[in-house]
């Protein structure tokens, strides 16, 4: 390799050189060792460059703060974001880029999983062992679901052939942990100070909001979490052996909103977010006519999509400009979600596809 470095600044300008100084490894060590043997006359400039870089690093590191401050600032951020809920008013003006981004993510995922082999499974028993607390176990050997009430006010509707373990007194711990085998529907009491975790086979669900369903029987191929209300984060358990084969998406987790589900395939450790089979209207206890009107008369397409979006809590991605001239008249009150979309799309000559947990509308628009 030709390395025409002459002065210290030539070395400093070289990304590989900097990489070696800041993060040396066996390869770069031997490369630069050889380099110095081959060009002894450059030793001095190299040493100067290296020393200067190390000093810069020292200077940056001397400005670091403590972990406590890092945590405190993040807590402030979380509090600020929780007190003022995020209202999304903008309807994705950059939808093309969004679609492209989603495609990239999907491609990335597919690529990683081709190279993956089944890894070790985690079971209810293994998960339970990670708890240092004394656990209470409830199992449902009956043929009907029953309710288990937890100390913090949360309740669990436990399905037949299922069992959960939990700590009788959450007060003394900084998180609320429940271990599940089988299926259960959770209604979790809000407590921002004590996140609620459900460990089910290899999947960890962290609750940020209120109610959701977890299905994880020992012999199941998949672990499924469906969200009813609120927000829920799911991730593959930390303890899974052979982590190298799992992508960060699976380790860092994904956030689920109402009507979304996450399915973890236990063979490949692939975590996929999608819509539940039959998305339900949000806040279904309010009369439909009051909460969500689906009677449209010469309504702008964007308003129609917005109404559907709000009623089902689902992201609909479309180009507002393209459909600016589209008007829509119909009564969709009694149609299920996908039928609503079929009817709308047919009338404005568009089509829809479901990507990840979003609905993407494409078409050429309307001419008046």
């Amino acid at each position, binding site marked *: 390799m030709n390395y025409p470095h002459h*002065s*210290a*600044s030539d070395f*400093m300008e070289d*990304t590989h050189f*900097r990489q070696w100084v*800041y*993060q040396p490894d066996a390869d770069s060590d031997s490369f630069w060792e050889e380099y*110095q043997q081959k060009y002894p006359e450059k*030793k*001095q400039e190299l*040493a*100067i460059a290296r*020393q*200067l*870089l190390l*000093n*810069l*690093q*020292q*200077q*940056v*590191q*001397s*400005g*670091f*703060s403590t972990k406590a*401050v*890092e945590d405190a*600032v*993040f807590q*402030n*951020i979380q509090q*600020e*974001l929780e007190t003022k809920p*995020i209202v*999304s008013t*903008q309807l*994705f*003006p*950059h939808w093309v*880029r969004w679609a492209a*981004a*989603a495609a*990239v*993510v999907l491609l*990335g995922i597919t690529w990683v999983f081709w190279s993956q082999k089944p890894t070790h499974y985690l079971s209810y028993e293994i998960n339970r062992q990670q708890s240092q607390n004394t656990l209470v176990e409830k199992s449902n050997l009956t043929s009907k679901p029953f309710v288990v009430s937890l100390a913090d006010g949360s309740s669990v509707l436990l399905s037949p052939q299922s069992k959960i373990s939990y700590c009788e007194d959450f007060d003394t711990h900084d998180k609320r942990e429940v271990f599940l085998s089988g299926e259960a529907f959770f209604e979790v009491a809000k407590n921002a100070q004590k996140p609620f975790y459900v460990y089910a086979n290899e999947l960890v669900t962290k609750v*940020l909001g209120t109610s959701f369903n977890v299905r994880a029987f020992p012999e199941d191929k998949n672990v499924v979490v469906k969200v009813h209300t609120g927000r829920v*984060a799911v*991730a593959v358990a930390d303890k899974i052996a052979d982590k190298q084969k799992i992508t*960060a*998406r699976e380790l*860092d*987790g*994904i*956030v689920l*909103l109402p009507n979304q589900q996450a399915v973890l395939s236990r063979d490949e450790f692939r975590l996929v977010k999608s819509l539940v089979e039959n998305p339900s209207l949000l806040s279904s206890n309010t009369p439909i006519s009051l909460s969500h009107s689906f009677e449209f008369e010469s309504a702008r397409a964007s308003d129609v999509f917005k109404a559907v979006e709000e009623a089902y809590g689902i992201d609909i991605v479309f180009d507002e400009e393209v459909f600016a001239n589209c008007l829509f008249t119909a009564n969709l009150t009694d149609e299920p979600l996908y039928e609503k979309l079929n009817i709308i799309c047919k009338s404005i000559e568009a089509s829809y596809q479901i990507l*990840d947990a979003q609905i993407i509308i494409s078409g050429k628009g309307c001419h008046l």
Partner: protein
Amino acid sequence: MKSNFETDERLWQATRLGSELAFEALYRRYFQILVSYGKRIHPNEAMVNDAIQDLFIDIWRTRHSLGQAESVKFYLMSSLRRRILRLLKSDLPFSEEWDELPEQALPMEDSPETLFAEEEENALQNEKLNKWLEQLPPRQYEALLLRYFHNFEYVEIAGILNIKEQTARNLVQKALYILRKLAIVLIIMVLGFIF
């Protein structure tokens, strides 16, 4: 600098799509770097923390309309810098804009040359170098850090400091010129130890 195998770009992407965990990971990855960098722009640590806090709150709030960042680090550092300067401006309405100060007016006690002459020969080389670095004109020093520690291209440095690319190159070259002259003497003295 990065031991985690997840790239900045993937974390950014996931944050835009609403992953709170990716958002936190991004924060954890950059908090210390940002504090350290921010304190160079203004030494008031509490204010720097506030600026970082606001920066991340805004990122989450506007995540739907955020673009695909070509360099996440560039975005974070340049945004933080702008925010701190804006805060400074609103706190001290009559103070001079830091960016507009002429180079000569910036604080610089002794020149490195005099300092070196006064030092004992056997003083710790490291401390000397650190001292010199701290005595560089702040803009030169900042450019030096951005280039050689943070790995930014000159065009990015120009974007962060809001100057022309050629000016960014000059800043770095000027700083290096002084440092190198001094470092040669030091290094010649210590070469025996290193090799």
